[in-house]
C-alpha cells in the first residue's frame, strides 16, 4: 500500500535543553503515516537518531499542553519532547 498525501501526518518536533544538545538540533519536521500518536512520533525519532537515546516514556507536549503518549497528533501540530523539568 502506498501512502498518499491524505494519509500522512506532518508535525513540527521541538527539542530542549539536554535533548537538544544531544541531538544537535532544536526543531525539525517529521512526516509519518496516519493515524499518528505521540508514541509513533517517538518511534520514528528513535529509528532516525542513531546515537540519541530517549527515555522509555519521555515527557511530551502537543500544541503547548502536556500530552500522554497515546494522544493523537495531526498535521501542523507542534510536538515537544521535554527533558525532566527543573523550574521553581
Amino acid at each position: 500500500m502506498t501512502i498518499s498525501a491524505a494519509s500522512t501526518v506532518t508535525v513540527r518536533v521541538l527539542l530542549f535543553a539536554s535533548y537538544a544538545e544531544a541531538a544537535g538540533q532544536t526543531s525539525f519536521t517529521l512526516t509519518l503515516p496516519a493515524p499518528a500518536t505521540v508514541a509513533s512520533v517517538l518511534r520514528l525519532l528513535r529509528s532516525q537518531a542513531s546515537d540519541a537515546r530517549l527515555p522509555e516514556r519521555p515527557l511530551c507536549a502537543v500544541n503547548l499542553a502536556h500530552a500522554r503518549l497515546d494522544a493523537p497528533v495531526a498535521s501542523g501540530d507542534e510536538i515537544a519532547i521535554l527533558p525532566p523539568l527543573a523550574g521553581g
Partner: protein
Amino acid sequence: MTFLTDRPLDLAPLVARVMSPERGGVACFLGVVRDHHEGRTVKRLEYSAYEAMAEAECARVVAEAEAKWEASVALEHRIGRLEIGDVAVAIAAAAAHRDAAFMACRYVIEQVKRRVPLWKREDYADGSQAWVTPRPARPTVERPADATSDAPPVSEHVSHTDWGV
C-alpha cells in the same frame, strides 16, 4: 512575556497586584538560587524554557489556584543567567483567609515544578556544567480535580534516563 522574565524578580509588585481589602491573607514564596546542589558548589546557573508552553502552563496553574481557593495569584519565573542568591521564582497568593492563601501559594510552586517546561544548567566551581535532574516529586498538596487532564502522572516527569546525555 507575562510569567517569564529575564530581569531580576521583585516580590513587592506581585504582592501589590493581589492585595485587596476583601483578602485578609497574602502568602508568598521565593525560590532562591542555592550555592550548593547535591554536594557540589554552584557558581551560577542558567534557566531555559519552552517559552510559549511555559507561559500557557503558568496561566493554567494560576487559573486553577485562583478558582480552587477563590484567590488572586501572581507568579513570575526568571529565565537566563542567574547568580547565587538570585530569586528564580516569585509567587504571591491572596485570599479571604490565610488557610486558602497558603494552600494556593503552595499549590502554585508545586505545580510550577511539576508542569512548567523550564530547565536549569548549573556551572560548578570545578568548571563543569550539568543539567539539573530533579529527584522524584513528593507532592504535598492536593490537586484540583479539573487539573488532572493537564499533566501526566508524576512517573512520566521524572525519568532519570536523559536522552543521550
